[in-house]
């Protein structure tokens, strides 16, 4: 059980790290939103599933309820995070920010 939880947590951390590196290294606004939106969502999903499993160590109705609440957080983040990213991209497009193309300087 502990091994599975650890695997989940480390997988989550791996995606979080990827997201952080991506935000720092990608060349422009839209590219940077890509890791920020996708990898953070997946990282959070994996980490919280790990926590929900860890919480079920002593199986009872109470811990099951807590785990269900953690999974609910996952559901809402899964809905809200991509939408937020979409809204930011939308605002960028409406404000007239041109996407970066290959060969340009990073900004």
């Amino acid at each position: 059980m502990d091994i599975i939880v650890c695997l989940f947590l480390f997988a989550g951390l791996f995606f979080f790290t990827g997201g952080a590196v991506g935000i720092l290294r990608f060349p422009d606004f839209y590219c940077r939103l890509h890791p920020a939106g996708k990898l953070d969502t997946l990282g959070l999903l994996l980490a919280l599933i790990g926590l929900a499993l860890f919480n079920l160590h002593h199986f009872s109705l109470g811990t099951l309820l807590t785990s269900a609440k953690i999974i609910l957080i996952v559901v809402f983040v899964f809905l809200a995070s991509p939408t937020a990213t979409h809204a930011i991209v939308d605002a960028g497009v409406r404000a007239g920010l041109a996407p970066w193309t290959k060969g340009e300087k990073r900004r």
Partner: protein
Amino acid sequence: MKIIGLIIAVLTGALLIYGTVDFPGWADPASPASTHLSPHFIEKTMEETSVPNIVTAVLADYRSYDTMFETTVIFSGGVVCFILLRIFRRKEPEDRLYRHVLTGATIRVKEGGKIPPDSDDFERIDTLWTPHDLIIKTVCRLLIPFIQLFGLYVIAHGHHSPGGGFQGGVILGASIMLLAISQDLRTAVQRMREKVDALLSPTGVFIYAGTGALCLLLGLNFMDYSALASVLYVDPVTARSHGILIVEIGVGVAVMATIIWIYNNLSSAGKYDEGL
């Protein structure tokens, strides 16, 4: 006038700083607060108020005067925002933009012009209107009920877990703001009119102060909720627990209405016609 204000502000600040000299040392274990109050709250809260969350009990029962005036401060903040920012414009702007809902065509109505009255086919839109984004609109419509449910849960569950009126009220207010951001201010104001905000904001304060005054009428001290036992038909300890809940509801209502009121005034610069 500015100089007088500055002098008053500096004087008050200096007096307040001078007042801190009399305070006991930071985290001094021999200070009265650490020797008398904290142990009493930690040991006696459960048997005196039957509220497991000590923070809530201290906030809404032992120090309820403090919280009552905090609520009043929030209400005053809303009123000040209203007085400073609200602009009552008698006449409508010259050109108004309407959108035909079915076809999506936008029409500009010149001054004096009218659209067919009581028609659901046209909706008024902002001058800087952008088409509602389907994804954002749908997700917000999906999330707002859950946010409001969670806000109610936070208010009602303040006895047992972190939460209470202030936090729950902010969450409820944020749900209406989300509606305003995801669609436009006009939609949000239609759901929650300015009059409703302005009415609910003092109502919350009134619920709080009224509960305290009711205790006074029932023969005990102001804000001593055990007096409510005879009204609620429970024993005095449970009555204190229920009293805290009533007060928290008042705080929640006041905070929710005030925060929406402030947002509406700020985002439309007091005109309420256009805005986020």
